[in-house]
């Protein structure tokens, strides 16, 4: 097999690994587009945000904060906090792409989302990643990027014509459930989920989505502690 063959095969495998997640991403993108217009963004700004930010739940938060007249500094700080989890994805991906040229690192960093990271970590965990794995990463990242842009555009076009009683926002928890379930293969991982969920409920009242950060840190600590205790 030549390098070019396996590169295109890896790329296709990446697109296919990401494809089922689009069932959740597309409704979420549509409702984002409608929400952006409802909170006073122009169609151009709503579309541009999907490229500039490219982070679904953060784009949601941006629109909600804009709608309630939050100051710019608060919006930027909250979006940063919500997206902090990507730093940890970045840390997990870093050693695997350390040898790549800078342009690859920049592109793969830009495409690093919950969904792409889920597809990548499942592939890595299954031991299927080969020397051309960068193309798998690119395929998964670009499949999500394309799906997000198209569904956002659909939401902007349909706007207020999307029936309000359709629970499209339920796509976010469903997508995350589908990502999480295969990752829970140990008691330590189960403890992580349990503690993270409980702390998220207890800390839901904290401002600036700080509860989310507290819950994630507590869950990680619980799982890590349990795993270390068994070593």
């Amino acid at each position: 097999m030549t390098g070019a063959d396996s590169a295109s095969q890896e790329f296709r495998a990446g697109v296919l690994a990401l494809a089922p997640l689009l069932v959740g991403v597309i409704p979420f993108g549509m409702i984002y587009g409608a929400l952006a217009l409802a909170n006073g963004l122009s169609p151009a700004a709503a579309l541009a945000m999907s490229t500039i930010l490219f982070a679904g739940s953060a784009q949601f938060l941006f629109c909600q904060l804009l709608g309630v007249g939050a100051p710019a500094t608060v919006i930027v700080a909250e979006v940063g906090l919500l997206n902090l989890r990507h730093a940890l994805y970045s840390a997990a991906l870093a050693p695997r792409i350390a040898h790549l040229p800078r342009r690859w690192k920049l592109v793969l960093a830009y495409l690093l989302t919950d969904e792409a990271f889920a597809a990548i970590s499942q592939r890595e965990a299954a031991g299927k990643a080969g020397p051309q794995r960068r193309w798998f990463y690119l395929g998964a990242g670009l499949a999500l990027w394309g799906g997000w842009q198209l569904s956002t555009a659909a939401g902007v076009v349909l706007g207020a014509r999307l029936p309000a009683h359709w629970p499209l926002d339920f796509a976010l928890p469903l997508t995350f459930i589908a990502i999480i379930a295969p990752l829970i293969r140990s008691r330590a991982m189960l403890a992580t989920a349990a503690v993270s969920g409980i702390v998220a409920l207890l800390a839901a009242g904290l401002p600036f989505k700080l509860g989310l950060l507290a819950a994630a840190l507590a869950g990680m600590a619980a799982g890590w502690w349990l795993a270390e205790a068994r070593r």
Partner: protein
Amino acid sequence: MSVWWIMLACGVVTFAIRLSFIAAEGRLTFPYWFRTLLPFVPVAALTAQVIPELLMPQGALWLSFNNSRLVAGLIAIAIAVQTRSVLWTLVGGFAALALLNGSAPP
């Protein structure tokens, strides 16, 4: 401040976060505890977003079979654990919520 500037600032911050460790790799060495903590990140970060959506759909704790998001979420979790299929989890979860709410599926 124009909404475009806020958006650009958010974009720069998000990209910097995503690039952070990828750019630092090789220049920094990370301690053992940090490296062993990383596998727990996705489950911890995503569960923290899911659980309040199911148990606090309107902002307050709602532990009841009348909470259709909770019931549909539990059904989706059961499907996800059984099938490990993203597609069936999403389809099943949406169908469950639609049936419970008695509305047209999205």
